[in-house]
C-alpha cells in the first residue's frame, strides 16, 4: 500500500490543525479567528479518532451477532472525542458571545483596530 493511503487520516488531521493555526495567526477578523480555533479543535478530534481506528473493523456493539473483540476498533478514543466535541462547542459558543460584546464596544471586528489594552 502506498504511504498516503495508510496515513491519510493523520495527514488530514495534521492539515486541519495547521490550517487552523494559520487562520488564528494571520487573519485579522475575530470571527475568522474563532473559526480557526474550531478548525484546530476538529483536527485534534480527528487525530484522536484515527489513533483508535483500525481499517476494516467495526463498532464494538457486542449485542449484534458476529461481533467479537478481534474485529472491532478501540472505543476509548471515540468516548474521548464525544467529550472533546462538547467542550469545543462550549468554547465556540462562549467565544462568539464575547465577540458580540467586543463588537458592541468597538464597532469593529478587525483585531488590528481593537487595541485598548497594550503592554
Amino acid at each position, binding site marked *: 500500500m502506498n504511504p498516503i493511503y495508510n496515513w491519510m487520516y493523520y495527514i488530514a488531521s495534521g492539515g486541519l*490543525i495547521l490550517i487552523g*493555526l494559520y487562520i*488564528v495567526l494571520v487573519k485579522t477578523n*475575530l470571527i475568522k*479567528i474563532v473559526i480557526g*480555533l474550531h478548525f*484546530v*479543535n476538529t483536527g*485534534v478530534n480527528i*487525530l*484522536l479518532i484515527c*489513533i*483508535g481506528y483500525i481499517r476494516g473493523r467495526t463498532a464494538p456493539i457486542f449485542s449484534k451477532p458476529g461481533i467479537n473483540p478481534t474485529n472491532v476498533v*478501540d472505543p*476509548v*478514543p471515540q468516548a*474521548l472525542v464525544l*467529550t*472533546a466535541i462538547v*467542550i469545543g462547542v*462550549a*468554547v465556540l459558543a*462562549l*467565544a462568539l458571545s*464575547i*465577540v458580540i*460584546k*467586543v463588537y458592541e*464596544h*468597538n464597532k469593529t471586528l478587525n483585531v488590528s483596530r*481593537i487595541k*485598548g*489594552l497594550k*503592554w
Partner: protein
Amino acid sequence: MVNPSLLIGVPLALAFSIPLFGLISKKIEKYIPVAALLINVVISLTLIPQVLKKPVVVFIGGWNPPFCINLVVGPLGIFLAILISGIGLLVSIYAVSYIKEEPTEKYHILFLLLMVGAIGIVLTGDIFNLFVFFEILCISSYALVAYNKDKEGTEAAMKYLIQGSIGSSFILIGIALLYGGFGTLNMAHIASKITSADPTFLFITLAFFITGFGIEAAIFPLNAWLPDAHSSAPSSISAILSCIAIKTGVYGVARMIFTIFNAGSILTFIAFLGLLTLLIGEMSAFRQDDIKRLLAYSSIGQIGLIVFALGIATSLGVFGALFQIVSHALAKALLFLAAGYMIYRVGSKSITSLNGIGKKMPLTSFAFAIGSFSLIGLPPFAGFISKFSIIYAAIQVKKPIFLAFIAVVLIATIVEAGYFFRIVQNLYFKEGKKLEKVTETSGFILIPLIILTISIIAIGIHPQFITGLLKEAANELLERAGYIGWVLGGT
C-alpha cells in the same frame, strides 16, 4: 473515612443549585460559595493525617486500575486542594459584598465551577480527566474575566480565550499522542511504561504538554494574555486567577516533567525559562502606572521564580517552589483584594491616585504593605522563607551556571523591591488629592484581609505549620516510583 471525591462533588452540586436557592431568596445565593468552600476546607483538613500515613486512591465504577477513572490524593494533591479551597473561601467571603453587578448568581456559579476545575486538576489521576477539569477551569475563567462586560474586560477575555483554547488543543494533541503510544490514560500506568518509548516521540509529546500548560501558567513567551486578563477582571477574580488558575498550569508542567515523563535532561532549560519569565515579569512591572497591571506582571515574575525552583529539582528546590506557591498565593490574594477595594473607593486604577490613602484606609493599606513586603521577601514574613530556600537550594546544586542564575534572581528581587517600596511610599508619605470621601473598608471585606495578613505573619514566624506537608509533597514529585506504586499497587 471521608471520600475525597466529595472535594469535587460538593462544589459542583452546590454550583448548579445556586439558581434554586436564588428562587427562595436572593440573599442566600451569595453565601453558597462560602458554604461549599468551607465544607471543602474541613474535608481536606480531616484527610491530611490519613494522606500522610498512606495516600488515598479512589477508584470510580468498581474497576481496578489502570482501567478506571481514579482520584489520587497524595500529599501534593491534598496540599494544593487545601490551598485552593482556603484562598477560594477567603475570596468568596470578599465577593459577598464586593460583587454588586447583576447577574450575581451567574458570578457565583462560575466561581464555584472554577474551584471545581482547579481542585479536579490537582486530584485526578487520569490524564483525560485532567484535560476535562482544565477546560472547566479555563472556560469559567474566560467568562469571569468578561464578567463586567466593559470594553477592557471583553477584549481581555477574547485574548485569553484565543490563547487558552490553542493551549487546551495542544494538551489534547499530547493526550492523543500518549494514548496512541501507550494505549492507556492512567497517569501512573503511562509513567510506568514511559521508558519503553522512543525518545523523539516522548520529546515531541512533552513539548506539546509544556506549551499547553505553559500558556495557562503564563511562562515566557506564552504570557501575553495574563496582564490584560488579570487587570481587567473584577478584583476578586484577579486574585483567584493569580493565586489559583496559573498555579494549576505550573502543577500540570511539574506533573508532566517529574511524574509522567521523568525528563531530567530538560530541567536546566526549564530553570532557564523560569528565569527569563522572572526577569521579563519584574522588569515590565517596574514601569506600570496601573496598579492591577503591576500586580499582574508581578505574578508573571513570581511564576518564573516557582518554575526556576522546580527546575533545580533537588528536594529542597521543589520544597522551595511549593513554599513559594503558598507564600505567593497568600500575598497576591491580599494585594489584589486590598487594591481592589482601594480602587473601588478612589475610582481610579492609577498608582498616583492612591497617594496618601494610608491615612484614610489604615487597615487596608497596612494589609497591602504586609503583602508587598512578603512578596519581596523581607524576613518576618512568609515570602522570606520561600525565597531563602530557593536560593539556598540553587547554591547547593554546585554548578557554575546556577550561580549566574542566582545572581539574576537577586537582581530581579531588587527590581521587585523597587516598585513595591514605591507604592508603599505613595500610600503613606505622599499628599493625596480628593480623598475626603474615602473611608475605611468594613464588614465582610475586612475578614479575608485580616485572615490573610495573620497567616502571612504566622507562617513567616513559624513555618513548621506547613513544612511537614510540603516536604512530603516535594517527595511525591521527585519519587515517581512511589506514585506509580500507590495507584497500581506495588511496582
